[in-house]
């Protein structure tokens, strides 16, 4: 009795086409669910690969001696201690060097922003002879790695004498082992990855509508005023992108630091290398499995400013890349 009634209902259900719809609905839902699970697995897996060394470093930096020698301890120390941090900060001369590093990084980033945005704007909006060739030179700057020109750069700063002007006045200058070469290079648009930033700004300014400038021009603003008051405020996405990239890369850079023999007191990324030896020799901690914990603490302190900066700028940064010139 019941069965025939169900059959009849089913036939009606099928006839009205409801069945097809619900099958479709279920299959798309299933697909989405599958995709969601797939994505979750991938994201969790890769996040693990990225985060696991970091988690290892952070947790080890809190280990006390008994935790190190206790094979049962994994990630969670039984007797957490801040001793690694206090000593690492002391031996790194952390606050002092960090102040210098931040000053160096931030000032270079500001110069980068001013110079590269200016050059990018010049390339984007003005026509002048050999423009294509010159822009080709910007691309060459991006493509050809710095190590091809490192020796001549080193030499030209060992005896800094552009066009023989300085030696004409009898001044002999050796700019090495100071951050001055880096400032000079950046000021003239040849700093760390300046070519890339010029490219980003150029692409972005080219994408802005010309009408804005024409309006400014009609209102009587000169090109410099237009650039400062109209174009730059509109270029915030690019500015944020370049700021983050420049801060991160400049902070992490060791190549130029090594090339120009910039002192360890200015670059924390250089002084971290001698931390373990300092700990071993000055504090007489001879067991490398203990002394490396101080290096971990130092590394945590090293990346801390960047992480803070990134967390603050993160949301703007990713939106910035999406809207800025990297994507033409």
């Amino acid at each position, binding site marked *: 009795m019941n069965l025939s009634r169900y059959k009849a209902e089913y036939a009606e259900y099928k006839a009205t086409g409801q069945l097809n719809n619900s099958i479709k609905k279920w299959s798309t839902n299933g697909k989405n669910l599958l995709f969601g699970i797939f994505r979750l697995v991938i994201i969790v897996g890769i996040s693990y690969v990225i985060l696991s060394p970091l988690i290892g470093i952070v947790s080890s930096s809190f280990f006390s001696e008994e935790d190190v020698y206790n094979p049962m301890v994994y990630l969670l120390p039984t007797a957490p201690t801040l001793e690694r941090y206090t000593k690492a900060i002391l031996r790194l001369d952390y606050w002092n060097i960090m102040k210098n590093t931040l000053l160096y990084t931030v000032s270079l980033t500001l110069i980068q922003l001013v*110079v590269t945005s200016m*050059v990018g704007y010049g390339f984007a909006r*003005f026509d002048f002879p050999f423009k294509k060739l010159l822009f080709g030179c910007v691309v060459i700057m991006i493509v050809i790695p710095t*190590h091809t*020109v490192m020796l001549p750069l080193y030499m030209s700063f060992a005896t800094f004498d552009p066009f023989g002007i300085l030696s004409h006045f009898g001044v002999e200058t050796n700019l090495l082992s100071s951050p001055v070469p880096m400032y000079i290079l950046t000021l003239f648009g040849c700093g760390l990855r300046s070519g890339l930033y010029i490219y980003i700004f150029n692409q972005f300014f080219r994408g802005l509508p010309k009408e804005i400038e024409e309006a400014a021009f009609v209102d009587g603003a000169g090109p410099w005023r237009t650039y400062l008051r109209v174009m730059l405020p509109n270029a915030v996405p690019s500015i944020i992108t370049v700021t983050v990239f420049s801060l991160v890369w400049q902070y992490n850079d060791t190549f130029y630091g090594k090339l120009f023999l910039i002192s360890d007191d200015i670059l924390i990324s250089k002084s971290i290398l001698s931390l373990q030896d300092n700990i071993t020799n000055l504090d007489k901690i001879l067991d490398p499995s203990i002394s490396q914990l101080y290096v971990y603490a130092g590394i945590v302190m090293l990346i801390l400013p960047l992480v803070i900066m990134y967390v603050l700028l993160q949301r703007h940064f*990713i939106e910035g890349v999406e809207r800025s010139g*990297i994507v033409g």
Partner: protein
Amino acid sequence: MKKKKRLTLTQKRSLTGLTFILPWLIGFIIFYLRSLIMTVDFSFSTIEVNPQAGGYNQTFAGWENFRYAFQVHGTFKQVLTTSIGDILIDVPLIIFFSLFMALVLNRKFRGRTLVRAIFFLPVIMNSEAITAALDYSRQQLMGGLTAASAEVMEGSGGMSLDYYIDMFGSLGMPDMILEYIVGAIGRLTDIISASGVQIIIFIAALQAIAPSMYEVAKIEGATGYETFWKVTFPMVLPHIITNLVYTVVINFAESEIVTLSYSTIFSENNYGLGSAFALISTLIVCLILVIVVGFIQKRTFYYN
């Protein structure tokens, strides 16, 4: 009173344009172009450095440095081939991986910002200084004392590869492909940590594709597979070029050949030979870039 020469409006504009790019132009000529020419010049010369006076004597040597590099020098050829080989293996993997991740991360889901932040972390942490400091402390350990913290560090690679190699080998997989895949898995950590910037660029590229294109594809009845190959992929192709150039340049700058030419110049004071190393490797990488970019560019459709 002196009569001013009048400029036309276009001339005025081009003059302002030149003043805008002037700082870069000066820098490029003084520091970059001159250095490039000097590097070429050095690589064709023998240079005697006298550290006391701080100067050097340069004598023209023809192809001597290049002959020495390829025929006499002990490690140059080997380092060059491994560096170039590494670039050729890593770059396609990085590009594919970052495109794939961008496709996965592009859709809206909860916690997207957090995940994107995590994926950018390697860019922050990818400092040579950190790697060098960790390498040094690992050297100090020398594997003798296995402390808990050392195990934590190496915990992420704790999978037995040999088992899988044997398994797929006995399934009759070609050795070449097998080796490539095994190599890729071995490099997984490196590849993931090298893809931060590329993923962001690809996400940006995907966001820039007009939604109307997908609507049209849907109305025409294209499947997801077809939509990817006919809409998404062609629109992303120009950015593959951008990422390719970026990845090759970064990988090259961190490769062993750079270290070799650095140490030849600054430790052995052999300026001529070191410049030749730098020049040869740069030329090879530029050649690869030109070939690959040219190959892709032919197949690229530019929307604008």
